[in-house]
């Protein structure tokens, strides 16, 4: 008989297998408490997500139903259609916002990676004057939350005409992601022995060729992980986006979705559907780099 997951944790057979002498029967008691606790936590964590998904496929009258309907409502995909297609046909504002988000997040991440990886390599490989101070300075630009710097940025952007432009958002996101990219990539570059480059240089390559041909390929997993972090930051960013952009053609998805709320009536179904569409890429990317997400958190914590 195939053993299902449920059976594996079911208390029945477990009791017989456990030695009776076990103190307080602690093993089983603890596992039940653990499972219960984790289940409660899972419900608390997942409820908003599930509710969002549910709302996105409910008819509007079911959304407002009291008592709330968890099951047995009519499933509809209208809200998802509304996310992409305007009521009169043609592109909706939300779909434009999504495209803007893809563009802004993609280009700013690329920019941060293209600038950050060589910088990290240089900081890792070369003796630079006041290296630690420079690195600390780079990190210090991330000490403040965006909301602290948004006013000065706004004033400067107004001077140079970057207000309400995608380029403005791209630049500020790249600037915010660059310190992160440099620090995280420096950790990855440090892990690649410098001897590969030395050996390649003795074999007739220039320093840059040695970096490109030998170090860079070994860095690809690190670059992917770092880029995904940067991508998620740019994708989710709200404060700069709402302060620095105003027109529908430039706006990214977070302020666009927020903009759906606040009229006399709120189309919660549309908000939920837009949020689902918005969350999907992040979920997919986070799943792809889940190993590195943990590695990134513990980077440098363990000496090999």
């Amino acid at each position, binding site marked *: 008989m195939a053993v299902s997951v449920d059976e594996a944790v079911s208390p029945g057979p477990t009791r017989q297998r456990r030695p009776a002498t076990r103190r307080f029967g602690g093993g089983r008691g603890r596992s039940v408490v653990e499972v219960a606790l984790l289940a409660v936590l899972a419900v608390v964590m997942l409820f908003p997500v599930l509710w969002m998904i549910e709302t996105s496929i409910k008819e509007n009258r079911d959304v407002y139903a009291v008592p709330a309907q968890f099951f047995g409502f009519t499933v509809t995909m209208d809200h998802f259609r509304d996310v992409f297609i305007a009521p009169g046909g043609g592109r909706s504002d939300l779909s434009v916002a999504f495209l803007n988000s893809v563009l802004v997040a993609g280009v700013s991440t690329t920019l941060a990676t293209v600038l950050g990886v060589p910088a990290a390599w240089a900081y890792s490989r070369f003796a630079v004057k006041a290296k630690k101070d420079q690195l600390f300075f780079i990190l210090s630009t991330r000490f403040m939350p965006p909301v602290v710097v948004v006013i000065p940025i706004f004033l400067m952007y107004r001077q140079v005409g970057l207000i309400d432009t995608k380029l403005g958002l791209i630049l500020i996101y790249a600037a915010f992601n660059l310190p992160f990219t440099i620090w995280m990539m420096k950790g990855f570059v440090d892990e690649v022995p410098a*001897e590969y480059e*030395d050996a390649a240089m*003795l074999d007739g390559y220039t320093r840059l060729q040695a970096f490109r041909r030998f170090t860079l390929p070994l860095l690809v997993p690190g670059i992917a992980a770092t880029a995904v972090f940067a991508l998620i930051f740019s994708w989710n960013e709200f404060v700069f986006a709402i302060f620095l952009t105003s027109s529908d053609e430039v706006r990214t998805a977070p302020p666009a979705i927020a903009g759906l709320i606040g009229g006399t009536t709120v189309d919660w179904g549309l908000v939920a559907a837009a949020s689902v569409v918005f969350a999907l890429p992040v979920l997919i990317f986070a799943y792809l780099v889940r190993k590195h997400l943990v590695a990134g958190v513990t980077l440098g914590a363990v000496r090999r």
Partner: protein
Amino acid sequence: MAGIEVTALHKRYPDGTVAVKHVDLSIGDGELFVMLGPSGCGKTTTLRAIAGLERQTTGDIHIGDTLVNDLPPAERDIAMVFQFYALYPHLKTRDNLAFPLRAEGLPKAEVRQRVDEAARLMRLGPLLDRRPRQLSGGEQQRVALARALVRRPRAFLMDEPLTNLDAELRADMRTEIKHLQGELGTTMVYVTHDQVEAMSLGHRIAILNKGRVEQIGTPLEVYDRPASLFCAAFIGSPPMNLIEVEVADGKLRSPGGLALTPPPGLPRDRRLVAGVRPEALEVTEPGADGSVPARVVSAEWLGDEIIYVVDHGGGHDVRVRMPPTVRFAADAPVGLRHTGGNPTVYDVSTEELVA
């Protein structure tokens, strides 16, 4: 093949650290030259400057007749073996060996022939189709050596190539490297912090300390007449006993009364330290002829020899190397006498050899 001349080498990093203060080396054609010193003494930086991986701040480097100061590493016609082997992880042994040759653009047939030759020399036949991570540390190091060989360079540079191997393998590889260098007759500059390696390998040894050369000489010269207190303390295991002495009645006398024959040409009116190797002393029965009274502080039984630490009054304990047949218990009263020839004598203030 070529000799290597290093003249007034000085290396200062942008952050202000001075790795090499002043180094002059004259390495002969076909010589196995060892640079020995503690970590941070500048030996690796000197080697990397010779390789062209670091640019010296001032000073000249000649390989053969060529001034190589401004040549990139690849044009210096040298091969280097690293502590971490630096084999390309994505390439099989065969391709790792062929890599530098292909980079040079040699024809396929010649590449194959040279790879086979190097593989035969380093006995790599069965390993040719494996990748680096499928090789043991010793095998990786043999591949790294072979990779240096295929180039047929004018000189080999070795940066602590045996440090990551375990003791037994290290001894084997030492023999292999020495044999190989003898057979090929190629100039080799070998950097290590291990004095046993330096003594057993080198035709000549340069002892470096704090970015300066303290002494250059054959292993025996370096062992018999260390040029400075640093060299005296660095070479030998256990190290030389450094005993403060005074000149009295035509003898050098330690505070504990041990009498040493003074070497000729001793300067007067200076504070002196005599360097006495542990094997130039002898532990005897108390009261033996020519001995001073002493006491055994501790004894290390090494099997083939015993190292006694002996207190003969006057502050510093001395170490004495004795055959395993001469046994004294710890704390036993004994005699101590000098049996070797003239000790080396150093000036306390300049720390240099005076006679």
